[in-house]
């Protein structure tokens, strides 16, 4: 069935809060959205999926009034409309919770909820008393009455900020709520809370456009799913009629029979060994071995000490107890520079802050970790830098105009490849990857996974930290599970099932049990 048929079948007698018909939009001659139809029913969660660049963002920006379509119609309650600005979309009952939460850090919670539509007194001035009272009401309706409405937003966590954006949408009396990758930056507890809020909104009759890469959420929440590919509608289906492989093949346009590449070759010698390593009380008694050619998965909840362990191995927070052995010889790693000299590379979780200098070019970013090698005399050898960058673009399949393109113009997946290229240019033997595919789309994810497998096949030892259980289970040759700053479980590939790993990950340990 096509999306419009499904829409028509359900819409009998009911006005749709928003309907798009044959929407097209191009930028600088490149068609980004091509004749896409999409509709929302009251009280449904409608997932919108597609790889980065498939046109999801453009489509939701058109619904939100940020872009105007070149062709096609937008209907609200059956009436054709044109949104000249976000304000007009708000007035039509369409609100957006943006991926990069658009809040004002120095203003209070209450004001963030109402800015742009503040309650007024008879004099036309802002009525602070009414604003604060209504803000409290709204947050209580969202089961978030614990938020202090007079607090400045700068003090709040990502999860709380998101609830403020949702409250803002409710304050606008939104009938359609667009959520752009709402769980991308959330910790697990916040994800659960968000999902219960989404269900609550659905019960109130709000139609929710749910943009996400995460399959489990789609299957847990969504009623329908629409998939875009290269700006075209790849299909729209009720969720019960699809499964994960179907969705993936709709997204990438080919079926991915194996989501994760198979292991090639055998593990080599032990290259890295930790014996009773600790950093203060954050991580304790960490012991494991990492072999050449092995991908070792480090699973655990956010805050379980995985990243902290990586930072200790990489010398950012040097070990305060225990021993780290490289090739069987005790090593002292007191700084990232020493770690690099020992052949360790760390690809951080937070690309934007730790991994890349976004306004700079691909070649400058790649050169950054290798300046010493790329310097001749006093000067950086520009030809060598460019050659290195061109090599990396080819080797990693980075989609870019060339080595001189600024990194910020690349998609998330390609940015991640630049980070990888940068660290691999140091010729490491041990590669630590923290959330290697967070926030990137299915296609780019598969490429990164293939790359990891290839590197391991060439003898690289890889320690992978991931919060996505399917990734941990699919990629790892062995899985270590952390909980409360300690390693609490170890599984071979055969024994690493979602149930087994998940149970150990989430169990609450007392000190005795953990030790």
């Amino acid at each position, binding site marked *: 069935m096509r999306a419009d048929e499904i829409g028509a079948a359900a819409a009998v007698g009911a006005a749709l809060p928003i309907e798009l018909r044959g929407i097209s939009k191009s930028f600088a001659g490149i068609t980004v959205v091509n004749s896409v139809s999409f509709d929302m029913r009251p009280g449904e969660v409608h997932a919108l999926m597609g790889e980065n660049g498939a046109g999801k963002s453009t489509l939701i920006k058109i619904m*939100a009034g*940020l872009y105007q379509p070149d062709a096609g119609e937008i209907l609200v309650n059956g009436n054709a409309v044109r949104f000249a*600005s*976000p*304000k007009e979309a*708000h007035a039509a009952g369409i609100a*957006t919770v*943006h991926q990069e939460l*658009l*809040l*004002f*850090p*120095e*203003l209070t919670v209450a*004001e963030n909820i109402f*800015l*742009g*539509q*503040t309650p007024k007194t008879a004099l036309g*001035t*802002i009525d*602070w*008393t009414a604003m*604060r*009272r209504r803000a*409290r009401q709204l947050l209580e309706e969202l089961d978030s009455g614990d938020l*202090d*409405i*007079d607090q*400045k937003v*700068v*003090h709040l966590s990502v999860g709380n900020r998101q609830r403020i954006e949702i409250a803002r949408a409710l304050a606008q009396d939104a009938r359609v709520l667009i959520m752009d990758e709402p769980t991308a930056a959330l910790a697990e507890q916040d994800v659960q809370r968000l999902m219960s809020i989404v269900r609550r909104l659905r019960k109130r009759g709000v139609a929710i456009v749910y943009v996400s890469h995460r399959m489990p959420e789609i299957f847990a929440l969504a009623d329908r799913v629409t998939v875009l590919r290269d700006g075209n509608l790849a299909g729209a289906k009720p969720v019960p009629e699809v499964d994960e492989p179907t969705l993936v093949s709709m997204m990438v346009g080919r079926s991915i029979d194996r989501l994760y590449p198979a292991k090639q070759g055998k593990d080599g010698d032990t290259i890295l060994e930790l014996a009773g390593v600790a950093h203060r009380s954050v991580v304790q008694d960490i012991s494991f071995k990492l072999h050449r050619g092995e991908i070792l998965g480090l699973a655990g909840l956010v805050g379980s000490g995985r990243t902290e362990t990586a930072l200790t191995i990489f010398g950012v927070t040097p070990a305060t107890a225990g021993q780290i052995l490289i090739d069987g010889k005790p090593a002292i790693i007191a700084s990232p520079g020493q770690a690099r000299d020992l052949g360790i590379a760390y690809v951080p979780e937070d690309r934007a802050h730790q991994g890349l200098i976004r306004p700079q070019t691909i070649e400058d970013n790649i050169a950054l970790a290798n300046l010493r090698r790329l310097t001749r005399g006093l000067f950086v050898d520009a030809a060598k830098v460019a050659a290195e960058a061109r090599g990396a673009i080819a080797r990693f399949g980075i989609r870019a105009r060339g080595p001189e393109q600024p990194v910020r113009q690349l998609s998330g997946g390609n940015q991640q490849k630049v980070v990888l290229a940068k660290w691999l240019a140091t010729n490491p033997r041990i590669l630590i990857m923290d959330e290697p595919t967070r926030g990137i789309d299915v296609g780019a994810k598969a490429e990164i996974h293939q790359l990891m497998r290839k590197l391991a096949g060439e003898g690289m030892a890889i320690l992978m930290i991931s919060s996505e259980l399917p990734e941990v289970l699919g990629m790892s040759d062995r899985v270590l599970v952390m909980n409360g700053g300690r390693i609490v479980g170890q599984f071979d590939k055969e024994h690493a099932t979602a149930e087994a790993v998940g149970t150990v990950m989430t169990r609450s340990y007392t000190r005795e049990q953990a030790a």
Partner: protein
Amino acid sequence: MSGAAFSPGRSNLQRFLSGYGQEIVVLLSIAALFAVVGAVNPRFLSDTNINSIFAGNAYIAIAAIGMSMIIMAGHIDVSVGALIGVIATIAGTLAVKGYPIWMAWSVPIIFAIAVNAAVGTLVAYTRIPSIVVTLGMLSILKGGLISATQGEWITNMPAEFMIAQMRPFGIPSAVWFMVALTIIAALFLRYTDFGRSIYAVGGNMEAARAAGINPERTVIGVFALHGLFAGIAGILFATQLQVIQSTVPPNLELTIITASVIGGVSILGGTGTVIGSTLAAILFACIGSALIFLNVSAYWLRAVLGLMILATVLADMVRRRRDK
């Protein structure tokens, strides 16, 4: 606002202190300065001196109100000192040439609004950083002023033109202006949509756009408003002495920017109050006067101001890092 509305855990006092911390620090500094310097040299507390501290520097506080709004919106204006000089010269010239007094007052103010609205338009739509645009404007205004006046002073202005020297109810009119404009601006910033959108645009421009605010229009509006305050400051500056020199006090724009920053306006935009900037302007005036009464070279004033700027910005950065 009722006390019960606040959530438990933080008392109203704590909240008040965290919301107005910088203002309280500046206010306490002023009080401490009066107490200490007054004890050393009681003439510091004389009517004449207190009058000269407040009346002589009110125009700086008024210009700092506009500057605070500019900085809150995420911009800066380094041309305001030169603009005040130009306004004073236009006003004085009109008054001496026999134009009606109301014109001598209002024409320069309208000129200042127009100049700054133009600057704001350039900043908003071309996205040239405001420091570059206003540096250009600084040169244009300074060069134009010296060429036009040939460095001559304006004297023999009619008595009814000298608004800053008037004393309604025994208090210099400049002080009335300072107090009234500070209160009006504070209410405006808190209770109007435009006032709040200044904070919003300075705090997060894209968020402001998504909330239905037109950031370009807000920036132009803020610059125009800043022009209004600079215009009033210029008229007070023109009329406080019997002569208008073709040079303004050197580094006047720096003093004004410093007042905003020390008054608690974050140089990164999005936060601050005009009460703070007015108090800070008063604090500078007190420090300047105190140095004289303590027989310290007035040149130390610049060094003290510099240290205060660095300390304040440092405190702001530390606070932001802690908040992250």
